[in-house]
């Protein structure tokens, strides 16, 4: 009976129901998109770093695992000392630089030979290796997203580069230039941001890491096999706060809309509440009716929100093909739980007011 009454109430006021459902859907979509974008980008970055194929990554003391956040403070000669360690097959120094011309892109300055030895080399879709100082390699996702092709000029870091090749994605960055060129542009002569170390025998990685730590005390020495698990928002200072803030804002939208919606509906239905009380409905019964109605609208909003999230993801990916958006089942559950919880919290006060209405006054309400 309560289910029938709730469904009739919800259908009886279609505009109010529609607005409430949309608000909850926006809340769910916001949560899923914010988390999906951040976790997608982190996961994508991690996979690309892992895709380099190195066993160990060496960074300067106190460097972030988010390599782009670190500068280029390490002398390039460190690489030669690392290469002399037992079980080390090869060392590839990489200089990292963020490009903010036209867009935000991470650029790897590489020594083609050592980078090939560590990573196994690029898979070329089209074009050739880095040869000239102005050559740049772009990966296939970047080329598709920016609609560029071999031979085009690419303006990054305030410099015009010539696209020498389009390569398969998954080797750390989406843009690669010669290390010497990037050192010149960044004013970081003979410096590197990170060393990727490849071992002769992967099972000796721990020993090599110990040796590196002995050689370079306080330097950050990390195995790349753990990299994916380290790339979480909680390891990036401030990101977790941003995500929490966005989620709180999204939940606040749902809470406030439900509060307003249910409050106005309680006022509008004052006489109905008086009728329920005259029939002997208890306070608990009235609270249950209000909360059940809220739950019904929240569930509709959640379903709509999940659909909207997948739609938004498809739209984003169509416009920005290089993006990765992860809509994880666990976060769908969490977003749904947040929406329901926010809805209940928003409906609690109106439900409490309704349950405490004086039946005589409620029946006299015009």
């Amino acid at each position, binding site marked *: 009976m309560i289910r029938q009454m709730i469904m009739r109430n919800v259908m009886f006021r279609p505009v109010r129901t529609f607005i409430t459902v949309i608000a909850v859907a926006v809340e769910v979509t916001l949560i899923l998109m914010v988390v999906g974008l951040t976790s997608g980008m982190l996961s994508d970055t991690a996979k690309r770093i892992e895709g380099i194929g190195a066993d160990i990554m060496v960074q300067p003391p106190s460097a972030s695992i988010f390599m782009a956040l670190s500068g280029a403070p390490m002398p390039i000669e460190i690489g030669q000392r690392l290469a002399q360690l037992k079980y080390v097959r090869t060392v590839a120094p990489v200089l990292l630089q963020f490009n903010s011309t036209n867009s935000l892109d991470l650029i790897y300055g590489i020594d083609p030979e050592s980078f090939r030895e560590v990573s196994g080399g690029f898979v070329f879709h089209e074009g050739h290796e880095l040869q000239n100082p102005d050559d740049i390699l772009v990966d296939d996702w970047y080329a598709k997203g920016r609609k560029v092709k071999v031979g085009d000029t690419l303006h990054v870091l305030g410099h015009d580069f010539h696209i020498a090749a389009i390569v398969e994605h998954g080797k750390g960055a989406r843009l690669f230039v010669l290390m010497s060129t990037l050192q010149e542009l960044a004013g970081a002569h003979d410096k590197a941001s990170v060393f990727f170390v490849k071992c002769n025998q992967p099972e000796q990685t721990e020993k090599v890491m110990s040796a590196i730590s002995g050689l370079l005390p306080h330097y950050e020495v990390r195995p790349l096999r753990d990299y994916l698990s380290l790339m979480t928002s909680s390891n990036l200072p401030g990101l977790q706060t941003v995500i929490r803030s966005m989620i709180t804002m999204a939940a606040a939208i749902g809470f406030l809309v439900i509060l307003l919606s249910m409050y106005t509906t309680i006022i509008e239905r004052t006489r109905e509440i008086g009728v329920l009380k005259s029939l002997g409905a208890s306070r608990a019964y009235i609270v249950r009716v209000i909360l059940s109605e809220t739950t019904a609208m929240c569930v509709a909003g959640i379903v709509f929100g999940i659909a909207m999230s997948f739609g938004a993801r498809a739209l984003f990916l169509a416009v920005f093909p290089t993006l990765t958006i992860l809509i994880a089942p666990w976060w769908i559950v969490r977003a749904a739980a947040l929406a329901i919880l926010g809805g209940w919290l928003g409906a609690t006060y109106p439900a409490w007011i309704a349950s405490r209405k004086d039946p005589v006054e409620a*029946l006299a309400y015009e």
Partner: protein
Amino acid sequence: MSDTVHSGIDICDHDAREYSAETLVSAGETLEPILKSTNLWKIYQVGRVEVAALRGVDLEIFPGDFVSIMGPSGCGKSTLLHVIGGLARATRGKVLLDGNDLASMGDGSRTLLRRHKVGFVFQRFNLLPTLDARGNIALAQHIHGDGFDPHRFEVVTRMLGISDRLQHRPSELSGGEQQRVALARAIINEPKIVLADEPTGNLDTKNSENVLGFLRQLNKDLGQTIVMITHNPEAAAYGNRVLHMRDGIVVDGASAN
């Protein structure tokens, strides 16, 4: 007695437990009044002024009575109905409804008592606009807690002549039909007493006669105890006893012989 309602029957209702209900006291078959008020006062606080709507009402209603209460506007008729029906609490005095003292009961116990012993009929019908006629009647059964009783439902709706109107919402029913649905809702749980507040106040003459006829039929055929408030002497004449109120008291006919 505070928040405890006494019952002569087992209450199998889920909400009843929250008021720690025990058993209802039932009045004797016919000798005891089903409703008795003694020196009943109801005073409203309007700003800093106290307004006495009831000023010591003494009243006895017996099982099977059909009592009409008449009086000018503002004499306290509706207030009396609200107090004896447990919708409002008396300021002073005593109201015994089927042996339960309403005046000393809390909100929860009065709610329980309304659910099990009282059926209300209002001037403005007060049907839920979102539910159809069937839903409005079934809602009372649902709140009562015994579940949907199809046999009782069939008997009541057929008796009131609304069997073929059950799929319609209130907005699709005439005033007379709406009031008959409201009447069905009031009696569907076999209350000890039906309290009707100007049940024909919003109806034309023909529909008024219909509704009053049904009330009389309920009283005569089923022995339903009814208290009806009305301005209309012709409507009042349908009852077997007429009381007159003035200035918050019953001026005549308060006790039946």
